[in-house]
C-alpha cells in the first residue's frame, strides 16, 4: 500500500497534527484508530502477530525483500515506530493495572470505614486515582496516534517473496509456437465489430462474432475448470474498502480501484466503509466470500468466478486499446490450501498447465514468464504471466496470470483453515476476453 497524500478531514485533530497527517498520508480501512472508532466502521482486527518476528529474527530477509522489490518502504523508521508503539502499549497496560489496584484499594477503604485516618486515606486514594486516570488518558491518546502510524505502515509492508521468484529479470518458463497459427480464422474482428466509443472512458462494443466469442470462451473455459474440481460462484460486483485494503490494494487511490459516489445508507469512503466497483470475477469479490470465516470443508477449496472485472485505466486514456479497458469479461480462480511454499507452487504449476492446454487448443503462439520481484504487486509472492503473441501489434500481450499470495490476505481479513491456521491463496486471472481478442486482430 503506497504512501500518498489523502484528505483526513473526517478526523477531528488539531491543525498541527492535521499537517502531519497530510504528509504521512496513510489511512487504512483495516485498522480504525481509537480516536475515530466512533466515526468509522471496523468489523475485524488484522493479524499482525508475525511483525515482531519479522523485525527481529527475519529483518535481513525483510530488507532483501524490500530491495528486490525496489520498495521505497523505510524499514528503520518503521522498526522504531513499532517498538515505540509496543513500549507505549506496555506502559499503558501497567498504568491500567495500577488503576485497577487503586480502585480495589478504594473499595476496601470504603468498606472498612473505621479509624481516624479514614477520611484522609479516602482523599489520598481518590487523588491517586484521578492522577492515574489523567495519565492513562494522555498515554492512550499518544498510543493511538503512534499505533495508527505503526499499524498502517505494518499493513503496507509487501508480501514475502517466494523462493522461486526471479530477483533480477523476468524469466521465460514455457513457450508454445504452433505450426500454423489460428489467428487468421477470426476475420470478423474488424473495426465495425469492435468499436470504441466516447460513452465512458475506454467504452467499447462487440458486435456479432467477437460478442459470441466472448460468451463462448467464458462458457468453455469455466466448464474446463469445473471439470478440474473448481466450484463456480457468482459474486457481487461491489466490495467495501475493508476488502480492498485486505487484498493489499490502496482503497482510496483512484488509479488503483474504482470508487462509487457516496449514496445514502451505503457507507462512505471517509468512514472506511465505502463501496468499490471491482466486478464479480475480481480477486476482492472472491475474497469477500471468505472474509471472516473458518473454512472447514472442502480443503483445499477451489473456486472460480466468471463475469465482469472493472479497474481504472493505466496509461494513456483514449488510446482505443483492448488491452487497457475499464471493463472486461474474465474468469478468476482462487485456491485456498495449506500455506506451504512447495504445495502452493505445485498448485500454481497445475493452473499454469491447464491454461496452457486451453491456449494450445486455440492454437495460438504464447509464452509463460515468471515475473521478477521488482515487477510484482505488493500482495504477490510469485507471479506467472501468460502472454499471447499479437501479430498486429507485434508484441506479446498478457491474457492471463497466476499468482501465489500465501497467507498475506488471510491474515489481514481473518480467514482461517480447518485448524484455525492461516491458509495460503493461489489465484489466477485465467482469461481476460478483451486482451485475448486483441491478439486476434490481423
Amino acid at each position, binding site marked *: 500500500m503506497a504512501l500518498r497524500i489523502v484528505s483526513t478531514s473526517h478526523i477531528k485533530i488539531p491543525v498541527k497534527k492535521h499537517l502531519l497527517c497530510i504528509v504521512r498520508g496513510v489511512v487504512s480501512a483495516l485498522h480504525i484508530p481509537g480516536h475515530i472508532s466512533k466515526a468509522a466502521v471496523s468489523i475485524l482486527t488484522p493479524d499482525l*502477530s508475525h511483525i515482531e518476528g519479522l523485525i527481529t529474527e527475519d529483518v535481513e530477509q525483510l530488507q532483501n525483500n524490500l530491495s528486490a522489490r525496489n520498495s521505497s518502504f523505510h524499514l528503520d523508521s518503521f522498526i522504531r515506530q513499532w517498538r515505540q508503539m509496543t513500549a507505549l502499549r506496555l506502559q499503558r497496560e501497567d498504568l491500567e493495572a495500577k488503576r485497577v489496584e487503586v480502585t480495589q484499594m478504594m473499595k476496601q477503604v470504603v468498606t472498612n470505614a473505621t479509624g481516624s485516618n479514614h477520611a484522609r486515606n479516602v482523599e489520598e486514594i481518590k487523588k491517586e486515582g484521578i492522577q492515574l486516570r489523567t495519565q492513562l488518558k494522555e498515554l492512550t491518546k499518544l498510543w493511538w496516534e503512534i499505533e495508527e502510524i505503526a499499524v498502517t505502515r505494518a499493513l503496507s509492508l509487501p508480501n514475502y517473496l517466494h523462493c522461486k521468484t526471479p530477483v533480477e529479470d523476468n524469466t521465460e518458463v514455457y513457450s508454445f509456437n504452433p505450426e500454423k497459427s489460428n489467428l487468421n480464422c477470426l476475420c470478423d474482428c474488424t473495426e465495425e465489430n469492435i468499436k470504441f466509443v466516447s460513452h465512458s472512458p475506454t*467504452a467499447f462494443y462487440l458486435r456479432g462474432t467477437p460478442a459470441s466469442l466472448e460468451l463462448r470462451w467464458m462458457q468453455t473455459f469455466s466448464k474446463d475448470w*469445473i471439470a478440474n474440481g473448481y466450484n463456480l460462484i457468482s459474486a*457481487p460486483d461491489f466490495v*467495501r474498502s475493508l476488502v480492498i485494503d485486505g487484498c493489499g490494494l490502496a482503497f482510496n487511490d483512484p488509479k488503483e480501484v474504482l470508487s462509487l459516489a457516496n449514496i445514502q445508507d451505503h457507507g462512505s469512503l471517509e468512514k472506511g466503509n465505502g463501496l468499490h466497483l471491482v466486478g464479480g470475477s475480481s480477486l476482492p469479490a472472491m475474497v469477500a466470500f471468505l472474509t471472516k470465516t473458518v473454512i472447514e470443508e472442502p480443503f483445499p477449496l477451489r473456486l472460480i468466478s*466468471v463475469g465482469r472485472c472493472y479497474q481504472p485505466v493505466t496509461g494513456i486514456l483514449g488510446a482505443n486499446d483492448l488491452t487497457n479497458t475499464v471493463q472486461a469479461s474474465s474468469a478468476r480462480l482462487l485456491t485456498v490450501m495449506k500455506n506451504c511454499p512447495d504445495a502452493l507452487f505445485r498448485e500454481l504449476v497445475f493452473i499454469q498447465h491447464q491454461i496452457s492446454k486451453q491456449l494450445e487448443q486455440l492454437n495460438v503462439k504464447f509464452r509463460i514468464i515468471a515475473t521478477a520481484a521488482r515487477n510484482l504487486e505488493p500482495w504477490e509472492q510469485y507471479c506467472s504471466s501468460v502472454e499471447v503473441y499479437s501479430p498486429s501489434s507485434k508484441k506479446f500481450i498478457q491474457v492471463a496470470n497466476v499468482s501465489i499470495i500465501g497467507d498475506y490476505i488471510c491474515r489481514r481479513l481473518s480467514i482461517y483453515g480447518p485448524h484455525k491456521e*492461516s491458509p495460503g491463496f493461489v489465484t489466477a486471472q485465467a482469461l481476460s476476453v478483451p486482451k485475448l481478442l486483441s491478439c486476434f486482430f490481423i
Partner: protein
Amino acid sequence: MNFRCIICLNRITSRPLISKNTKYGNLFNRINPCTSQSQLRLNTNQSWKPIPDIDYLSDPNNYEIIESNIKSRKGTGNIRMLKELLTKYNSAETQEKDELKKKLLFEALKIPNRSDPRLLSYGDTPHIVEAPGQKPAWSFPALEFHTIARNLDLLRTENLGNLTGPRTYYFIKELAQLEQALIHFTVAALEKKGFTLFSVPDLLHSRLIESCGMDTKGERTQVYKLEPEFYGDVCLSGTAEMALASYFTEAVIPVTQLPIKMAAVSRCYRAETSNVQEEKGIYRVHQFTKVEMFGVTSGDVAASDALLEEFVAIQKELFSSLGLHYQLLDMPLHELGAPAYRKFDIEAWMPGRNMYGEISSASNCTDYQARRLNIQNIDSSNTLRFVHTVNGTACAVPRTLIALLEMHQQSNGEVTIPSALQPYLDGLERLRKPSKPFKIKWIKSKSPQNKTKST
C-alpha cells in the same frame, strides 16, 4: 447553403427540417448529414442536440390530451409552463431568445411520451391479457426460494453488508451454473430468431442514461455513479437497453436495414430499495445479470407495435419452455414511466411467496429515445425520420431463478431442472442436497483467532 461535411469532407447542402408550425420550426433546425459513405455512424462526442416533438407539443389542440397524459402517468412535465415559454419566446427580443430556447428545450424534454389510446380504458389496474400454464397443486407446503437454495447449499446472503454492500448475494455451485445455463439458453434462442449479439459497456455518461428516460440527478435517483471527483461523469447502467440505444446516437440508418434486433448480456445496477416484505431476499437487488432485447424500427407505430408483439411472443415462448406459469399484463398509464408508449409485463407465479412476481417487461418507446439520442432513418428519397425503439427483458436472472426453483421444487427439497436447460448443465436433471456441502463458518468476533507465525 453549401458547406463541407466534417465527417466525410464531402460538400453537402443544408436542408433544415421545416416544422408545420413554421413559427417554431427554425428553433430546432438540423442539417442533413451526407449519405455517400457508411450510413451507420456512431457517436464520437457528447455534443448532440435532442429534438423534442415541438410541432406536437406546441399545437393548442393537443394541450388537453398532453396534460391528461402527464396526470395519468403521475409523471413530471408541465405543458402549461411550456405554453407560457412559447408565448414569451414569440414576443422576446433577439438577445433573450437563446436563454428562452434552453428553457423551452428543458421543459419539452420533461414531457413524457404519448400513450397508446387503448390504455385509456384500463384505469389504474393492469389488463390481464393471458395466463398460460397452471399454478401447481401440491400436497406439501411450497418453500420459498431462499429456503430451497440454502438447504441445497447453493446461496449465501448473510453477513455480506459490511463486505460487499446491501442486498448482495453469492450463487454457489449448481445455482451459479444454472445462472450461466439460463444466459446461454436465452442467447441461443434469440440468435435463432435473428437477434445480433452485442457486448455493451456497463458504464455510461449520465446524458445517455437520461436520454433513455432515467433520472440520474434527483435525490431518489436509482442510478449508481463513480466518484465524480476522480472519474467525472460516469454512471452505472441499470439495463443494457441504455447502451444498446446509445449505440445509435446521432446515427442515420437506411430504412432498408430496419428492423434491427439486438441482444446483450450485461450486469445491471440499480440503487432502488424496498421495505416491502414480498421483495425481500434476491427479489429486489442492486446488481444482477440480464439478457436484454432491443429493437429499432422505422418511425411508424405499426412497425414498432409489431416488434413489441414479437418481443412479447419471444418472452412467452422462453418462459413456457422453462415450465413457468405466468400472466401477461398490459400495463396502465401510471406504470409506463416517461419513455414508454405501451408496456407489457410478465409476472411469473412464485408458489413459495404465494404471489405473481414480475420477471420481464417489454416497452415500445416510439420516438422518445430516438429524439433524445438523434437516431433517424433515411429512405430512398433522402427523407429523414426519427426511428422507433423497442426493448424487452429476455431473462432477468435473479427473479427467473426464484420462479424456477419455486415452481420445480419437489417434496424432498430437490428441484428438477427444465429439460430446455439440461443441455447447458451437462445433462444435470436435478438440484440435490450435496453429499459434501461447503462448511464455511462465519466468525462473529472481531479479534484474530490465532497467533501462528507465518511460514
